């Protein structure tokens, strides 16, 4: 986050804050969609601090410009983007003398103040000398995360399940939940599956979905895998589920209307939460198991784990979102559950890896393979949030 704070100060040598404004109005600007910048808030608090006619500054105001970097933004690109934006503001002219990075915040030193020019500075000379006492915005929490008085988001209608059959609850020996793009690709090409239901998330529009299930639909369909695996259910989560909605969806899918004996969740390693090296050239997968799943195959038991040959997810790294909510429900309800996270997130190599993992679990599962074979899987690179998806057309 970049915070540029201006405030008039007596010492113009060190705190060069000259912000001239002709009236005392409070301004709020909200400008979004800056490259690498998630949010820009430009607020001027009309606090009259200094009325010294002998000085140039007659009216002094606190100007606070806050920029928040997008999570994946490289710091240098973020800073450049902000500076470009500031230069583009015709109201302001400034020269950048020096910069520093402070605990996630970034201050810009300014010289040569002119009329209607503003200069960014520390709030006082003391803060200039002691960087620890400057107030940087926290980088691990957003400010709203640490504020009891942040208003909550508007409530959303609850998600719900729709089934073609009235037999509820649905029981299955295995419930597979495909979340990652490679797993969605793999299961889309399972030859023998029957659509039996869907999960409706009210905030996800259905416009743009096709009549027949398609891998590009924004849907969360539930299938029964036929033939040998009569009691295997598959859930294909083809839209992005926010962390805030994950708990409600997980409770819907596990333990209420669907009662599985075992659960397999397929997701990708999340680079933002992974504490190891992630190379796009490497292919690997890890697993996490609930206590009941581990107990099933431990201590001389004749049972084997659902996923063999995979190491446990390294301690210190985490998985969040829907996959985490699902595994948590399994753990709390004492259901045998396994979460498999694979890498890379997209591409043919990821799809091949997931396919090999699934074939170990369900050896007789048949996949429809056309003459393009693996090339067709590679085309289904990013199933969610596809750039060419349109909500306007069905």
């Amino acid at each position, binding site marked *: 986050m970049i915070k540029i704070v201006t405030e008039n100060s007596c010492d113009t040598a060190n705190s060069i804050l000259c912000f001239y404004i002709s009236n005392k109005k409070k301004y709020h600007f909200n400008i979004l969609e800056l490259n690498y910048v998630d949010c820009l808030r430009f607020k001027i608090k009309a606090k009259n601090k200094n009325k010294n006619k002998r000085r140039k500054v007659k009216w002094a105001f606190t100007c606070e410009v806050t920029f928040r970097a997008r999570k994946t933004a490289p710091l240098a690109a973020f800073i450049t983007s902000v500076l470009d934006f500031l230069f583009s503001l015709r109201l302001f002219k400034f020269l950048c003398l020096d910069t520093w990075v402070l605990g996630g915040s970034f201050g810009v030193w300014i010289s040569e103040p002119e009329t209607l020019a503003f200069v960014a500075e520390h709030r006082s000379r003391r803060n200039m000398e002691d960087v620890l006492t400057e107030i940087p915005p*926290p980088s691990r*929490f957003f400010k709203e*995360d640490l504020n009891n*008085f942040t208003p909550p988001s508007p409530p959303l209608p609850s998600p719900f399940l729709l089934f073609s059959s009235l037999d509820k609850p649905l029981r299955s020996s295995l419930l597979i939940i495909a979340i990652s793009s490679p797993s969605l690709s793999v299961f889309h090409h399972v030859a023998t599956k029957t659509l039996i239901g869907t999960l409706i998330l009210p905030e996800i529009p259905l416009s743009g979905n096709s009549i027949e299930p398609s891998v590009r639909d924004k849907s969360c369909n539930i299938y029964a895998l036929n033939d040998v695996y009569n009691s295997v259910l598959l859930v294909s989560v083809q839209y992005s589920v926010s962390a805030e909605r994950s708990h409600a969806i997980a409770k819907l899918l596990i333990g209420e209307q669907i009662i599985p004996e075992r659960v397999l969740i397929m997701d990708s390693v999340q680079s933002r939460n992974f504490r190891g090296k992630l190379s796009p050239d490497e292919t690997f997968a890890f697993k996490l198991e609930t*206590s009941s799943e581990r107990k099933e195959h431990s201590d001389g038991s004749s049972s084997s784990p659902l996923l063999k040959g995979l190491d446990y997810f390294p301690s210190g790294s*985490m998985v*969040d979102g829907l996959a985490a909510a699902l595994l*948590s429900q399994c753990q709390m309800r004492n259901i045998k559950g396994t979460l498999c996270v694979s890498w890379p997130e997209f591409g043919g190599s990821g799809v091949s890896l997931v396919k090999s993992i699934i074939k170990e679990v369900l050896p007789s599962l048949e996949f429809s393979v056309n003459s393009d074979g693996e090339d067709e899987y590679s085309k289904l690179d990013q199933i969610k949030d596809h750039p060419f998806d349109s909500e306007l057309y069905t």
Partner: protein
Amino acid sequence: MEFIVEEGKHLNNDCSTLVLPALSIGNVGQLAVDLLISSTRAERIGYLDDPYVLPCVGNDAYGPIPRGEVALPLEAYDSSLNKLTLVQQRSPVLKGMMVEFAKNLAYFAADSGKKHVIVLSSLDFGQWQRIDMSSGSQIYYISSANMDGADDDCEKLGWKKLHEYNPAQRRWKYLSTLAAGNAMQEDGLAFEDELEDEEDYYPSLPFAALLSCFKAKGLKVTCLLCYCSEGDNIPDAFNLADAACKLLELSPQNFHGDQGGNWAIPFSWKTVYGPPPDMSLF
């Protein structure tokens, strides 16, 4: 919030003290609870299923060698030897639901028979108004023992009551009203457009919600606070955990670790600040 006991485990009624973190700058409270759980070899006894906590899972956080024991976002541990229950929170709270979350925790604490709750939290060094020569290692506290937040037990330990705590201040009063269930949080939107003053900072923090909600349930609460900046906050965690031990009359010398004072560093701390640098560059 539902408390789910792990199979084969049970809540120990003798564990009458509850220690838990408040979300705060540098995650110091959470790191301190990690340290206490790891060092006391507290045993996980259950999970708290709360719709207001964002989901996350990971491998065993403590070790010494992770065995694939899945870690959830809100877990309860018991240290029977020390008559202590610890709750660890690993992920943030849904936007705007901090007070509701705090109420849920207060219900849990009251229902499970806790007598004393200790909340561990940090404060932003940038808000440090009364600078002293302690260089930030001073522990501050707020206690429910007296109306003004003072507590003789804490004073004897050399701690200072947080000077800025003023239960008559508008936001503290509003929090108390929310905790008692006498107001809807929408009433507080009037605060948003007003210019904030420095007194508004402390009651806005998560520890304040926990303090208010535990007090509303009639529980004795002590908040232990330390100032810090965001960065490598492990030393701050040690400072706060050590303070908790003093209040609980526990001696780290009796812990099971191999660090100074027998603290046991959780295994997950090896990568708490990210992966090691790529040595192939050199």
